[in-house]
């Protein structure tokens, strides 16, 4: 049975609107829907360029609607979390009065039986409008816009920015190789996978040799040494972004494991002042004890705490610095 890891990614975008989309969003806060003239046509929602000729359009805006005619529609029986309504509704293309194109939005009709091509609809306005496409909650059947009793009125300043927030939960497989690598880590071991063609060794449960493009599996496993040499390092001055627990500058080192081609990148270095970190330093792996593990709810390296200087003489090799992976 293959394990999976689930993660939710937030996509909090802030977008600048520009002179045309911004004017449209600002008008929405005033309970107006505007289009833009392009020759004899009125395009809704307004674009900055003519959709056919690609010519830049003068900012000649015109009020349309607020009511219009449904030119196509689809009933959404089970809305998604991103849909504008949480109960069954229709997506519809609405040709607003005075417009030559159709505007895509939701129609809150109550029932699929209330929907038909050609039906008339009007907007139901949100009370607190901010300059966003969902300032129109939905269109509703009929000619008259619906204005809430506690209507907040238009914004004082033109709208120039908008937020778009999406959240998606992803499920990705943890391959058998990755599982075995994690199990080895839990036992305080480094598991390597050696390519049968080129002999290069990989860590982290890689599924294939990226040079020779052959799959790797249990037959290719090798035990890796716990000692190595620092080939490169950086001192990081932490920025206090969410999740950053470090407050003082700290070292991250690259460790070339003895007698292998493996370089582990960005490893923590333990019990060493930053001004003593140097290329050529000999180090050995330090794993968390059972007691320490309990405090390591979310160590990115698993059980590996980091690397401790062994006290052996430094390796004097000017080419070490080139070994970064």
């Amino acid at each position, binding site marked *: 049975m*293959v394990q999976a890891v689930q*993660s939710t*990614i937030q*996509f909090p*975008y802030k*977008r600048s*609107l520009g002179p045309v*989309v911004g004017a449209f*969003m600002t008008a929405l806060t005033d309970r107006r829907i505007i289009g833009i003239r392009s020759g004899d046509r009125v*395009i809704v*929602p307004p*674009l900055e360029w003519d*959709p*056919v000729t690609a010519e830049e359009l003068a900012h000649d805006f015109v009020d349309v609607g607020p009511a219009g005619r449904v*030119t*196509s*529609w*689809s*009933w*959404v*029986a089970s*809305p*998604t*979390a*991103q*849909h*504008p309504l949480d109960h069954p509704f229709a*997506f*519809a*293309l609405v040709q607003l009065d005075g417009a030559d*194109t*159709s*505007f*895509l*939005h*939701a129609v809150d009709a109550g029932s*699929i039986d209330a929907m038909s*091509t050609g039906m008339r609809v009007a907007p139901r306005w949100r009370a607190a409008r901010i300059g*966003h*496409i*969902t300032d129109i909650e939905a269109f509703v059947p009929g000619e008259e816009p619906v204005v809430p009793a506690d209507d907040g009125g238009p914004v004082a300043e033109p709208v120039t920015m*908008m937020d*778009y927030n*999406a959240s*998606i*939960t*992803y*499920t*990705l*497989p943890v*391959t058998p190789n990755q599982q075995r690598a994690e199990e080895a880590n839990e036992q305080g071991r480094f598991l390597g996978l050696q390519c049968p063609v080129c002999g290069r060794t990989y860590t982290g449960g890689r*599924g*294939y040799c*990226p*040079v*020779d*493009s052959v*799959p790797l599996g249990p037959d290719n496993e090798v035990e890796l040494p716990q000692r190595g040499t620092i080939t490169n390092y950086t001192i990081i001055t932490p920025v206090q972004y969410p999740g950053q627990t470090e407050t003082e500058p700290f070292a991250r080192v690259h460790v070339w494991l003895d007698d292998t081609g493996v370089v582990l990148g960005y490893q923590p270095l333990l019990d060493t002042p930053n001004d003593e970190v140097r290329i050529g330093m000999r180090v050995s792996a330090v794993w968390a004890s059972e007691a320490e593990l309990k405090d390591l709810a979310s160590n990115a390296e698993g059980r590996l705490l980091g690397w401790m200087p062994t006290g052996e003489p430094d390796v004097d090799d000017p080419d070490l610095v080139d070994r970064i992976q």
Partner: protein
Amino acid sequence: MPDIDPIALIGWSVSPMVRSTDKTEAQMLLEVITGAVENAGITRREVDFTCAGSCDYVAGQAFSFVQNIDAIGAWPPKRDSHVEMDGAWAMYEAWLRLQLGDIDVAVAMGSGRSSTADPALIYPMEMDPYYLAPLGTDAASFAALQARALIDAGKVTERQMAEVAARARRDATGNPNAQVSGDFDVDTLLAEDYVRSPLRRHDLPPITDGACAVVIARADKARELCDNPVWISGFAHYSELHYPGMRDLTASPSTTLAAKAAGLEEAPVEVAELQSAFTHEEPLLVEALGLAPDVPVNPSGGPLAANPIMATGLVRIAEAATEIRDRGRQRTLAHSTSGPCLQQNLVCVLEGGSK
């Protein structure tokens, strides 16, 4: 087509099509690239250029295509490119690249693991971020708006759409890679509830994990490597504007333009593999392409049998090529599409024989 150096498909490979694979995207690609180069009788070392089509939002990871490069065997370093589009467009770029004339062999690929998350939540993020994405406009909702427009215009009926689904699933029984196949009764299909009216479950494609890779080569190299290259006789794509409310949804002018640019009208084709992921798109595309009524459409089952997003179009090209190399056809057509309501369309005309 302008006079250009002939380029041919010399090998290809299509992965099994499944609802959810245990493999990573790079592993899926590793297997189809190995399959395609072996099919072409070469090794990765003989590949001069690679181009991949995939989507970070589908993969759930920024720069996911960087990991996919591992599947190429990029050592010594290779010329590589990526398009955030179906692999059919990756092949288009590879086809253009070979026409520079300095290199001979390219691999194009497409891959997608739609099992990562709910496609209905991913798709809106790829839409116009001001007017469409904040409404959560998913692919099936867009498709339903186009289906309704076609029904209202008298161009298709819900029964005809169910018949397309039944035929696709029946044809797919002969396709070992198909995800959905079998014999289905049209009346039974029509008795099901709508998912997005007027679309029922059978009008929608399955959610699929899969990948495809093809090897293309310039004429001399193709003849040297392959006894029966499949020639790309025409290749073109056109785009319409994005916002569906500003288009006539009952026509597909970009498909017609691409077909003309690819020389489709110069001779009849014997088979058409279309990226009609929704049933109503098939009659619309057949009309836009001007296909004769007796031309078999999607004998593989098409996207209604397996829809590996980002590879679905490239699979159409592989299937159309298989019709020539393995089934004795002389001239076939493959189509790919991108964007809401068939916004952008690609046409690839393939021919057998010598060039």
